[in-house]
C-alpha cells in the first residue's frame, strides 16, 4: 500500500505529511480520513489506483492512494 498526499493538498490545508498514519487494510476512506485528521471530506478528492473512489471504499494491500484537493464544482 502506498499513500501520496499531493503537495497542493498539503500546502493548502497545512498538513504535515510526515505525521499522517498509513491507512489500514479493510478500512474505509471515510474512516481513515476521520482517524488521521487529514481534513474535511468536502475538501478531499481520494484517488485509488488512478480512479476516484466513493467514501465507503475499503482499502486493499496493493492500493496506491493519492489525496488531491477536491475539484471545484461548476
Amino acid at each position: 500500500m502506498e499513500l501520496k498526499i499531493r503537495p497542493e493538498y498539503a500546502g493548502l490545508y497545512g498538513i504535515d505529511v510526515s505525521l499522517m498514519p498509513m491507512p489500514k487494510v479493510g478500512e474505509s476512506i471515510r474512516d481513515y480520513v476521520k482517524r488521521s485528521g487529514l481534513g474535511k471530506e468536502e475538501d478531499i478528492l481520494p484517488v485509488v489506483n488512478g480512479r476516484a473512489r466513493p467514501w465507503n471504499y475499503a482499502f486493499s494491500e496493493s492500493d496506491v492512494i493519492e489525496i488531491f484537493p477536491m475539484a471545484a464544482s461548476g
Partner: protein
Amino acid sequence: MQGCWGKILSIDLSDRTVRTVVPPERLYREYIGAGGIGARLLYDMTGPGTDPLSPGNPIIWMTGPFTGTKVPTSGRHQITSRSPLTGIFGESDAGGRFGTALKRTGWDGLIVKGISESPVIIILTENEVRIEPAEDLWGKDTFETDRIMKERSGPSCEVSCIGVAGERMVPISAIGHDGENARMSGRCGFGAVMGSKKLKAVAAVGNMETEVADPARLMAQQRKMVPQLVEKMKGMHLLGTAGGTAAAEKMGDLPVQNWRRGNWPDAEKISGQVMADTILKKNYYCASCPIGCGRDVEISEGRWAGVKGAGPEYETLGLMGGSCLVSDLEAITYAADLCNRHGVDTIEAGSAVAMAMECFEHGLLTPEDLDGIRAEWGSAEALVALTEKICLGEGAGKLLGLGVAGMAKKIPGSDKFAIHVKGLTLPAHDPRCFNTMAVGYATSNRGACHLTGASYFFEKTAVMPEFGYEKPRPRYTEGGEALMNFHTQNLMGIMDSLKMCKFTIYGGVGFTEICEWYEAVTGSKTSVEDMALAGERIFNIKRLYNVRLGLSRKDDVLPERILTTPRNDEGTGSYTPDLEPMLGEYYEIRGWDRNGIPKRETVERLGLDRKYF
C-alpha cells in the same frame, strides 16, 4: 495586432444583406474580444426600446484573441443579446468546438439582426457566407441538426443551433453546440432570440489558422502551464463538475428543496463518483483543453434508457437534483438529455420544477394545472414529465417555460418561491455558504450568475496574488466581500473576452499568466493593471446597458429566502447574508453613486463614452 482577423460579419435576415464590419483596432485593445466586444456592440447597436424578440435586437457570436490558438482551454465563444427571459443584458459562454470553427472561417464574430420570413441556416466557410433554407431542419433536435450538417458539410463542420424549444420561443430556451456532447449556451433564453429570427443554426467550416505573434513564447508557456493544469485539475478530469456535488452538500452550497433547507444526505447518490462508477463512458474535451471535464454517458437499460451523450454537470445536479429532492441520477440525466436535445437551460428548468413542486405542496398548483402531473418533492417521474413539457412548450410547459419570475407573475401567492435575481434563477451556489456571492449575485449584469464574478472560487482554493489574495479567503470572513467581487468580476470579464475556461483559475491561472499569453498571441504589450482596467471597462459597459433600461439599486437584490432563511445545516449554520452594507461598499469601489449608477468621472475614466464606428 495578431490573434484576431480584425473583421466581424454582419447579416440582416430581414433583407438578407451581408456586410463586413471592420472595427478600429482600439476596440480590440479596449474591449479585448468575445464578451467585451459583444457587450460594446450590443450597447452601440440598440436602445432601451429594442424588444428582445424584435428584428432590431442583434444576437452576436464572438470569439476572443485566444480562440483558435494553442492557449489551453481557449476553444470557447460568447453569445450576447438582450435576453427575452429577463429583458436586460444577456450573455452566454460555451466551450466545445464551435468557437474555434467560427474563428477558422476568418471571422472574429457574427452579428445577426432582422427576422427571416422562413427558417434559415447561415453557413460560413473560409470563402463564402450562405443563407440557406432550413425548413427541413426545423423541428429537429440539436443532436440531429449537428449530425445532418456534418453529413452535408464534413466532420469538421460545427453548429450552433436551437431545438424545438427555441423554435417555439420558450423563454428559457438555449443554444446547443457539439451535438450530443451538448456544450450549451444555456442562460438568458437565447434560443428564443434565434427562434424569433427563424434562424435554426449557424454552421462554421474552415481551416484558417489564427496567427500568433510569438509562437515560441506561447509554446514555452504551454510547456510550463499544461502539466500544471493537468495535475491540479485531476479531480475535474476524473469526476467532472459533478465531482463537487457531495462536497457542496456538506458545505451548504448545494440548493436543497428550492433553497429552503440544508443538509440532504442523498446528494451522494447523484455525485460524480456514482456517475463514474455507473453511466460514464468517457471524458469529453473541449477544443484546446487538456483537462477533459466533460462527461460522455449512456443509459441503455432501465426506466430511463435511451440517453447517449453529455452527462449532467454540477449545476444540473443541483437544480434538478437537490432543489427538487430527486436522488435518481439516471432520471436527472434523462431530464438533462431532454434539455440538451431540445435546447433548454437545465438551471432554469430545474428551478422551475422545484418552484412547481413547492407551489404544488402549498396548493397553489394542482394536478389539473400540471396536466395531471403530481409535482411532489423527490418525484423523478414529475421531474422528467415537467421537463419534457417545458422542452416542447406544451401544456404546463408553457407556464414553467416562463422561468421562475414569469411563473410568479402567473401564480398568485408564489412570489416567495421564485428564487431569482433580475429574472435569472440562482445557479447552484448558495450565498449563505459563500458570503461573497451575495453581492456577486446582486450585481451580476445578466442576473443571478455564479460565473460573472465566481468569487466562491476564491473562498475555496483559488488565489489572486496580484491584488493581495495570497491565500484563499476563509469562508465567513467579515468585510472585504465588495472588494473581492470588484477584482473577480474584472478578471472573469477578461477571461470571457479572451476566451479561456474559468476553471483554469483552479489550476493556477490568473492575471499574470493571462498577460503573458496575451502578449505572446497578440504581440501587444500589456500589464496586470491594463488587463484589470479593461475588465473594469467591460463590466461597466454591461452595467450602463442595464442602467439605460432603468435598472438601479432597487434591482440589485437577493431573494427573500436567501436573506432571511438560514439553512441550519452543518456547513452554514444559521448564517444569512447582510447585503446592504456590502452593496454600499461595492458601489463606492466601482465608482458608482448610491443608486448604483456609474458616476460621470467613472464613465470618463474608463472611456465608456467613446465611439468606435
